[in-house]
């Protein structure tokens, strides 16, 4: 049995009205009656019946006008109107439908057909009802989802954009359209003044893709700020993603470690399309993916091997997500690597390239890109970068001023462990040293790599005279380091109160034959030289720097005044 409906019958002929009322109420429906269009509209507004049987020709207001008004009042709700008509010519029937009628019934009335039509119209009415309900539900869910995403996006942006993407040597393009697209751009200064930069692309889109970005960014910023090396940051990110992400979700990424002082870049690419190192000279080196993406391999199987390239002022590194190559045009063709290389080859002025690539993409696809990440990092003079001071989490009350400590890191440890973050943490417990934290870290880093590379590993900087030798130097470094079993690097730290301020004396020695001060140039040999910057830098950044004097190793001093 169908649901009981309330049905309005508008018919000026009393006999017909009576007949219809009887038929309809016998079918179990509630009947309302009107004898002209105006009455019908008024009754409709008052009682909101679900279905209307409407005579076409009536006095005062005819059925066509009444139907139009009722449909207007009904709005989105479907109130089926069945026209009752003795009209037979096609044009009149069309008028019924045009006025908003849904069907018509010819006089004289047939009980069976009327019942069937009411049922059919009721089905339509319910269908419309269901559609409207579901539409509203979807709209509500969507609204809800967008609100959640906006909030999540605000948190996401806080975490991922807390670095130095706005530094003057970085340009980037990241889709502003999708709330989340799984792409991730991170950049942060190292305590030594260099920079770690990451372009990542998580599998999938939307929230699942963005979730992994949060822990990744935390590790990246946290460890970079503490002075951990690129390899250590990568290992930790990989281990963390592997631990928390479901199988099948991972992050393709290219990570750069740029040293402005040493003028080198270290590159690790796992799963992203080739990036490019573009030199002022016009040379183009592809930065090829040599690893599985982050979050795929178990920590023990992870490979943190990176490539090292010398950089000159104005050299640029371009990184891109696969969205760039997969940009589609109207014909469904992909932009592809070849077109990108053509744009790069056509470039005559390196600083304009970033814009040229952007324009080529827009021109190719005919619209703004919504799934593209593009990043350019250039080597600039250190002085052009304004670095934020190191951040500290304590309340600034600690005063430890008078102590000394010595550390010896031996072969096995040197292979796997980077002592610098540990030493820096220790030294920055001393408040007075904090304003010099960056310089202190740079000096320790230079002295450590000098002791390790030349003293313990016996590498010869002379190798770095040209680009091939440069690569060879870093190849030998990793081979010798992997095979290292003995040797040591010692750090002697001594803190002395001095007036109300203090002084730090650091001496670094190693198991090597000791270096020959005669060989140490006072200044870098020349601006284009690929080596010899290290000790010059130490001299520049520390208050005093000396060697010999009956002590092994190099000695540097830093002092500070009260209130510094």
């Amino acid at each position, binding site marked *: 049995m169908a649901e009981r409906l309330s049905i309005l019958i508008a018919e000026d002929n009393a006999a017909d009205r009576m007949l219809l009322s009887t038929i309809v109420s016998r079918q179990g429906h509630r009947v309302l009656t009107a004898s002209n269009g105006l009455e019908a509209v008024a009754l409709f507004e008052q009682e909101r019946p679900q279905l209307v049987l409407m005579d076409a020709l009536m006095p005062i207001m005819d059925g066509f006008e009444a139907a139009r008004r009722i449909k207007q009042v009904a709005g989105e709700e479907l109130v089926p109107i069945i026209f009752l008509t003795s009209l037979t010519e096609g044009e009149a029937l069309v008028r019924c439908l045009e006025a908003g009628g849904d069907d018509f019934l010819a006089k004289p009335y047939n009980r069976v057909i009327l019942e069937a039509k009411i049922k059919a119209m009721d089905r339509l009415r319910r269908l419309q009802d269901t559609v409207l309900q579901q539409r509203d539900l979807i709209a509500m869910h969507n609204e809800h989802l967008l609100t959640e995403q906006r909030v999540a996006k605000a948190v996401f942006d806080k975490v991922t954009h807390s670095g130095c993407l706005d530094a003057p040597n970085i340009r980037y393009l990241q889709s502003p359209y999708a709330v989340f697209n799984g792409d991730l751009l991170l950049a942060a200064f190292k305590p030594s003044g260099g920079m770690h930069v990451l372009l990542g*692309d998580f*599998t*999938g889109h939307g929230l699942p893709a963005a979730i992994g970005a949060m822990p990744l960014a935390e590790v990246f910023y946290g460890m970079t700020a503490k002075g951990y090396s690129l390899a250590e940051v990568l290992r930790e990110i990989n281990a963390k993603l592997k631990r928390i992400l479901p*199988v*099948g*979700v*991972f992050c*393709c990424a290219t990570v750069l470690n740029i040293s402005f002082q040493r003028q080198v870049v270290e590159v690790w690419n*796992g*799963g*992203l*399309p080739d990036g490019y190192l573009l030199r002022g000279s016009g040379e183009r080196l592809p930065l090829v*993916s*040599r*690893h*599985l*993406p982050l979050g*795929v391999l*178990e920590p023990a199987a992870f490979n943190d091997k990176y490539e090292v390239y010398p950089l000159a002022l104005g050299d640029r590194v371009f990184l891109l997500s*696969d969205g760039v190559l997969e940009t589609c045009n109207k014909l469904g063709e992909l932009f592809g690597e070849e077109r990108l290389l053509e744009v790069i080859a056509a470039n005559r002025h390196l600083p304009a390239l970033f814009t040229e690539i952007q324009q080529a993409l827009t021109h190719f696809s005919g619209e703004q890109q919504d799934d593209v990440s593009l990043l350019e990092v250039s080597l600039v003079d250190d002085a052009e970068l304004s670095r934020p001071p190191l951040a500290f989490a304590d309340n600034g009350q600690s005063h430890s001023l008078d102590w000394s400590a010595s550390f010896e890191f031996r072969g096995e440890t040197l292979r796997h462990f980077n002592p610098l973050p540990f030493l820096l943490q220790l030294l920055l417990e001393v408040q007075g040293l904090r304003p010099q934290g960056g310089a202190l870290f740079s000096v320790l880093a230079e002295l450590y790599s000098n002791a390790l590379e030349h003293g313990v590993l016996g590498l010869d900087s002379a190798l770095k005279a040209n680009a091939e030798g440069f690569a060879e130097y870093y190849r030998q470094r990793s081979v010798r380091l992997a095979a290292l079993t003995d040797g040591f690097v010692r750090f002697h730290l001594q803190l002395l109160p001095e007036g109300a301020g203090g002084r730090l004396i650091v001496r670094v020695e190693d198991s090597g034959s000791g270096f020959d001060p005669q060989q140490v140039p006072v200044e870098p040999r020349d601006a284009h030289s690929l080596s010899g910057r290290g000790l010059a830098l130490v001299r520049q950044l520390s208050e005093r720097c000396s060697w010999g004097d009956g002590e092994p190793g190099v000695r540097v001093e830093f002092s500070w005044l009260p209130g510094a």
Partner: protein
Amino acid sequence: MAITSLPSSDGQELTILIQGRFDFGAHQEFRNAYERVNSTPQRYVVDLKDTTYLDSSALGMLLLLRDHAGGDSAQIRLLNCNPDVRKILAISNFEQLFKIA
């Protein structure tokens, strides 16, 4: 996109054939292809000869299969990769995890 799986006569090997685009839309079907089989294969073959496109979600699905097939001890071959598919697999260095032919 259609995915069919065919066990070898001795049940030792399962061949999964992927036609058309291999992307997130294939997720459930791809899982069904190796989870809803009666045999317990020792080896898997993913035949990509009719695969026109493969995206990073597909790489994720391959990792899921690898996990299902025993992780590091899984024996999975990816066969008949066209140059585009091969390039995507190469960028991700998946040859370290799968035999690619």
